[in-house]
């Protein structure tokens, strides 16, 4: 798992005035909207007593810790400590990490990391699936997110997920093409997904048959964990967010010409066994994610989740550092909670 990416943290529809807890990269975050509707991501951990801000509430544009009522502004600074006497200044150290937040085409992204904007990998270029036919949902996997992406990013698996009726695989691919960018990759092909039809033979007599149907299929990967899928007229956006190194939540939005009540839920559930127990296929998307993550590791962005599990969990709170830790020298000594440990890059 890597910091210094724009992580898709929740579908926009789930983020409101009531603070929402999102667990990713082994850390807790709180998502909420200010009075003007802007989404904001903060570290969920109150610097005072480790309370969960996401169990709190909003006062104006501040999220309020439910334990002692400390109020945090969108920049993470505490602006009120109710137990303090009036006029006592709020200490500089009373702050939590605040992450750059962008809302785009139905998703709230948080930049979970501390590098300057010029060094940041770009935001996923996802399409807007906001038509009346759009459906959304989520599924939790007992699998690492890289594995989920390698499986769901496989073109045939993707076509299986998006097809309006489930067909026998493998389906034949033709005109396969792959593209690679620094922080992404795409695959496209024509795919033959035989369609079941009922042929009338005259009178009341009919016969079930399959007829070949060629549709264009594609999968595009945007680092760190978004996949965009098409199959003919059907489109889907999926965010495969690692809760920790072994658990992943796939949150999805799908738009189908003839919407199905369950959207992609049924197809994803049918893939559970394959995703959780079989080795990842040698998919172009899976390979691209490996390449991207190797580049991220070289930057020193790899979170040492094994060390956190072994030494920190339950004993010591650590947080993903926010840009203010680097960008605001006056705050250099103001960070009470330590940064997550990262792995040294291999050379």
């Amino acid at each position, binding site marked *: 798992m890597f910091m210094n990416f724009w992580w898709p943290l929740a579908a926009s529809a789930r983020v409101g005035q009531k603070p929402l807890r999102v667990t990713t990269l082994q850390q807790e975050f709180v998502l909420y909207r200010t009075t003007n509707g802007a989404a904001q991501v903060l570290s969920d951990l109150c610097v005072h007593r480790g309370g*969960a801000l996401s169990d709190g509430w909003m006062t104006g544009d501040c999220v309020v810790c439910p334990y002692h*009522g400390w109020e945090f502004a969108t920049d993470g600074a505490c602006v009120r400590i*109710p137990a303090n006497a009036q006029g006592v200044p709020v200490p500089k150290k009373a702050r939590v990490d605040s992450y750059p937040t962008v809302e785009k085409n139905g998703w709230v992204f948080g930049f979970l990391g501390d590098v300057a904007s010029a060094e940041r990998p770009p935001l996923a270029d996802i399409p807007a699936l906001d038509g009346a036919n759009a459906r959304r949902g989520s599924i939790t996997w007992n699998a690492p997110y890289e594995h989920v992406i390698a499986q769901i990013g496989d073109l045939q698996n993707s076509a299986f997920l998006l097809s309006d009726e489930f067909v026998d695989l493998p389906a034949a691919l033709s005109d396969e093409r792959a593209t690679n960018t620094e922080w992404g990759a795409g695959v496209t092909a024509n795919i033959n997904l035989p369609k079941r039809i009922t042929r009338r033979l005259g009178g009341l007599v009919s016969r079930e048959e399959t007829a070949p149907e060629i549709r264009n299929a594609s999968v595009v990967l945007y680092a760190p964990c978004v996949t965009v899928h098409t199959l003919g007229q059907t489109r889907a956006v999926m965010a495969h967010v690692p809760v920790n190194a072994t658990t992943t939540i796939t949150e999805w939005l799908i738009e189908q010409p003839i919407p199905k009540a369950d959207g992609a839920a049924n197809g994803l559930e049918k893939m559970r066994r394959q995703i959780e127990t079989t080795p990842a296929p040698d998919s172009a998307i899976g390979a691209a994610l490996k390449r991207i993550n190797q580049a991220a590791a070289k930057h020193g962005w790899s979170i040492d989740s094994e060390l956190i599990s072994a030494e920190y969990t339950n004993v010591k709170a650590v947080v993903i550092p926010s840009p203010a830790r680097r960008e605001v020298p006056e705050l250099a000594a103001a960070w009470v909670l330590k940064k997550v440990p990262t792995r040294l890059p291999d050379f």
Partner: protein
Amino acid sequence: MLKNFWYAIAFSNEVKQRPTRLEIMGKQFWAWRMANGQGAFMRDQDLITKQPLGNARAEGGVLVAENGQRYAPDGSGRALAYPVKERYGWFFVFLGDLPEAGRMPIPDLPYLEDPNLKYGRIQGDFPWKVHYARALENGMDAAHAPFVHGGAFGNPDEPEIPDYDIAVTPGSGIATIFLKPTPSKGLWSRAYSSKKRDTLVKTRAGYWMPNLSILEVNLPFGQLLVFNAHVPVNDMRTVSKYIALRSFFTGGWANRNAHQRVIKIFEQDRVIVEAQRPEILPFDIGAELHVKSDALQVAYRRDRRAAFEKGWGLYPRGKQADDVEIPSPFLAAVS
């Protein structure tokens, strides 16, 4: 978890001649009462075979394991045993190997042994998924009341905690804080007249190492005392064994209502304290940010830290570990 303290781990009336198995600090123990009434406390593990004792029973002064092996609770047997004392209605065990002369005694608590005090008394259990030191800090925290218990006993319109003094003795700190009152609801509102509402409420809160807390609220119509033994079941679980005394509605008819009030307060705390991270209260004082109103919690953390620096931390990495045993003073004396 810290060794070398007297821990209240049960109510006395819960320990009978028939042995009960208890989990404390992540380990299994047997508690029972010998024929002469003396309490006994022993690890549920044979020192040689490393096996649990199975369905053990008490016989004379010893515990007999399911396989017939006999274990004396004084260290002469093949299981770690620990000293027991009873006071205030709690069953205390000394977990550690410090000789008797060096031990901090069971503290003298106010009120509980006063024969002239004609208070209503209840006691009960509140089990929750928290570290005991987080539970203890919560149990003596005045600053959270307006936010977590607003309406019950915290006043959301008056969240300010005035400067307070702490009476410090070795291993203990008791703060006296004057707070604005909260109007009562339900049965207790009958004792609350409007003219008393402007009186500041004297509140006392404090701790005794390692796991006792007190919250004393002097309401205009009487006194309410909540003592807690926060029993460390393991790193993630605690049973807070409360004794609540009240100077008003002292009859048994009001006990049910008093229980309901205590449990309601605990349930409001549960959501908040169970979500605290890290779960285990840090030994490092600087790991969390303190403000003036936290002076009492900081005093407790300093006492914990001091014990840790004496080498009394059972688990060097902070988390409990299966390969660490809680040493027994009897065994130290024998060997």
